[in-house]
């Protein structure tokens, strides 16, 4: 590991100023991804600015009935928060589907969002990888691709974003509060992460030194049904092959509102706008769900090793919607 300096941030503006001023500096949250990547030689910051002691460790009620989740709230505390369990159960479920008890105790809200989109070749410094070393090539193309993307990939990168939490947030119309040198701004959740295109080295749309300080959830609104369903190679402590988050309203056996996000299929948490468009106003039937899944997966472009993800995503999405609407049929 490259030697580095370490300092504890006492307030967000000065933390931002320090990191903005040094290209080789990085924020340190729970460290469960960054420290591992430093050990592997993937990340080599010369200065770590520890933001875990900033006053961002609380979950607070917002005037509109929503919640503000501080950036350094640990994943386990977020999942266990009574308000989250009662009002945003899909977020608790998504969090609890990810990692292990120990890691959830360490990982922070902002750190979870900033974990790298990655694959086995990104993690192996002996292989070319456009995300790790831009222009060096993609070892996954034509390689081992069981865990790779089927949607939104590019010829430069087919890695997937591994977060479960982020898939849950993607269906909650969350906003990400970001501190920068010019003050604070709010980023719609869907705009935080990016597709690889020709810059797979960039996972988010944030500039170097911009610091996530909170995630805002709007009020959940009228009672809606929701679910998070994850399919993986073993029952626990494994990344998703495919995951599905759904929030849904049904009136008179008709889908009146729906938001869907998919995990394990793309470089970012994948908001399934095509499926949502098919479902809005459609009868709450399996036929509708199959049409919605097919619409979403129409542009799917699997690799040799992950063609199974297309029918798996279809089946998981249809089953999740079906289970949420059993009583309507």
């Amino acid at each position: 590991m490259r030697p580095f300096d370490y300092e504890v941030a006492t307030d967000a503006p000065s933390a931002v100023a320090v990191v903005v001023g040094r290209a080789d500096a990085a924020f340190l949250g729970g460290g469960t991804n960054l420290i591992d990547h430093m050990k592997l030689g993937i990340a080599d910051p010369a200065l770590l600015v520890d933001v875990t002691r900033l006053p961002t460790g609380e979950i607070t009620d917002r005037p509109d009935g929503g919640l503000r989740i501080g950036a350094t709230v640990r994943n386990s505390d977020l999942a266990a928060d009574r308000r989250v369990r009662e009002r945003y159960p899909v977020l608790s479920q998504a969090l609890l589907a990810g990692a292990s008890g120990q890691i959830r105790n360490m990982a922070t809200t902002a750190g979870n969002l900033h974990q790298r989109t990655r694959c086995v070749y990104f993690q192996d410094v002996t292989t070319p990888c456009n995300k790790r070393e831009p222009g060096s090539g993609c070892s996954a193309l034509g390689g081992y691709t069981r865990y790779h993307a089927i949607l939104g990939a590019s010829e430069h990168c087919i890695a997937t974003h591994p977060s479960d939490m982020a898939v849950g947030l993607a269906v909650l119309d969350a906003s990400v509060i970001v501190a920068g040198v010019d003050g604070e701004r709010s980023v719609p959740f869907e705009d935080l992460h990016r597709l690889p295109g020709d810059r797979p080295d960039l996972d988010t749309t944030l500039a170097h030194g911009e610091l996530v300080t909170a995630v805002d959830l709007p009020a959940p609104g009228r009672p809606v049904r929701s679910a998070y369903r994850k399919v993986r190679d073993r029952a626990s402590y494994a990344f998703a092959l495919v995951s599905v988050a759904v929030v849904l309203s049904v009136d008179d056996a008709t889908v009146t509102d729906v938001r869907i996000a998919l995990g394990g299929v793309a470089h970012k948490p994948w908001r399934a706008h095509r499926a949502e468009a098919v479902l809005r106003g459609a009868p709450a039937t399996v036929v509708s769900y199959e049409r919605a899944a097919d619409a979403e997966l129409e542009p799917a472009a699997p690799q040799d090793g992950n063609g199974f993800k297309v029918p798996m995503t279809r089946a998981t999405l249809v089953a999740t919607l079906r289970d949420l609407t059993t009583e309507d049929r």
Partner: protein
Amino acid sequence: MHADIEIEVDGEVRSTTVDTRTTLLDALRDRLGVTAPKKGCDHGQCGACTVLLHGRRVLSCLTLAVAHDGAVVTTAAGVAVGDALHPVQEAFVDHDGFQCGFCTPGQICSAIAMLEEAAAGHPSHVTDDLVAPVTLDDDEIRERMSGNLCRCGAYVNILAAVRSAAGT
């Protein structure tokens, strides 16, 4: 790129100087001689390095010692009271919850914290009702202990030990 840190380990305040690159695990083992937490994978996948940090289970291999100046750390070597084993340790002995023993200190720390999480009502991935009190059945225990691997495959007896300690 060195820092002086002071950590309370198993009830004793210890001071040392660490390279900033030193993980909490390496500081405990190599600087302070506390060898209860084990280095298995060193990448957060096996759980052998699990310790209690301010009472919460964490992976000491994925966190920097320099970030824990002033912290209170409890390892499996510090959970007994005098000669009286912790009830979770007792249960592992009673149910033969190990073979080689390498993963055991991590399993013990993880189980102790997991029982407190469940008692506090924290749900898990396999909990049907997110807001109901938690009943630690076998599925719950397996899910909540999934961050601790046992290469000997002593899971059946680990499960029995944790179930016994949980009183279910």
